[in-house]
């Protein structure tokens, strides 16, 4: 039951956000709503990943994976906090322009996300679990995932790469972010394969919810890419992106909580028929 709540909860949050964004027309209220939503869902994701990380003991393989995911959200929240600091402290912090702080925090956050996703994606292989699908089918799924990741995050990468080549040094940060997104999105396939291999067991829950979170980020990037090609209206596009961000972050919360529930479950709970 608890696991099902973790599965359905994010959908309800996303639906509530979509309704709220549709109902608020006033630009100031809308801006406030978005700001609160963005920070709140990132906080929830941070809480979920940190919860999973501290569930494991020092030296456990997944502790570092979850800690890196938590670090990513922490760094992104810190970056957001520097925007608020800018209003009070001015454009410099410790003598360094805040743009550089933002860039460093985003780059470090992306690096943490890539490393964390990489460790999560490798967990099945490290554990030596047997995949029910053939190697060929797994390769096909991986190929499709890479193609989808490139199709969704690729256009932004090309645009930002052109900007960097044209001498816009500020575009280095979004470029690095695009590269991080593409790499992280490619890890959806092995994480999903792990979830499939573990189906019927308690561990399928955190891995399924983690897959849902990664798919949420894929759709979030997709909403932004859509803006390059389709006249959808910036307000609607932003709302769509935020709904997917809320899904990604709340599923990260769910995955972390599910991971803790599984690891802390009683070892003597009724065994499944073999």
């Amino acid at each position: 039951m608890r696991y099902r709540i973790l599965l359905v909860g994010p959908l309800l949050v996303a639906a509530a956000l979509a309704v709220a964004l549709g109902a608020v027309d006033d630009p100031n209220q809308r801006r406030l709503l978005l700001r609160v939503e963005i920070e709140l869902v990132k906080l929830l994701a941070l809480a979920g990943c940190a919860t999973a990380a501290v569930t494991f003991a020092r030296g456990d393989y997944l502790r570092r994976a979850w800690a890196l995911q938590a670090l990513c959200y922490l760094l992104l929240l810190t970056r957001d906090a520097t925007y608020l600091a800018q209003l009070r402290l001015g454009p410099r912090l410790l003598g360094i322009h805040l743009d550089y702080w933002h860039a460093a925090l985003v780059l470090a956050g992306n690096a943490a996300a890539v490393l964390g996703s990489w460790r999560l994606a490798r967990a099945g292989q490290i554990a030596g679990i047997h995949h029910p699908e053939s190697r060929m089918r797994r390769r096909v799924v991986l190929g499709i995932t890479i193609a989808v990741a490139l199709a969704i995050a690729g256009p932004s990468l090309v645009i930002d790469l052109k900007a960097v080549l044209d001498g816009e040094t500020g575009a280095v940060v979004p470029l690095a972010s695009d590269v991080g997104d593409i790499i992280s999105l490619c890890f959806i396939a092995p994480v999903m394969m792990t979830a499939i291999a573990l189906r019927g067991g308690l561990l399928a829950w955190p891995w399924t919810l983690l897959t849902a979170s990664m798919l949420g980020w894929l759709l979030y990037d997709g909403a932004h890419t859509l803006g390059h090609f389709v006249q959808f209206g910036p307000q609607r596009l932003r709302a769509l992106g935020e709904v997917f961000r809320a899904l990604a972050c709340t599923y990260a919360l769910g995955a972390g909580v599910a991971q803790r529930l599984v690891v802390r479950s009683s070892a003597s709970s009724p065994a499944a028929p073999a």
Partner: protein
Amino acid sequence: MAEPRPLAETIAARIAVYLGPHTGRMAVKTFCERALGRGPDTLSRDDVPRLLAALRPMLRTLIGAAQCEAVIAQINRELER
């Protein structure tokens, strides 16, 4: 009176709580062959510690060292019954 469950089946059923029935069964088969050089049908009481030692890294990776030890202790309890 019901027949006692084969050893491999008892172990597979316990780890299947976490890994699911397919992966639980396959893990016992794979690690039996790897650690003992034969299939799970031939598993005897004396083989159990070696099989559980072979399963340990997998369980540690997925559920952490503490829970892994709790599961292995539970398996030993079930096999003693």
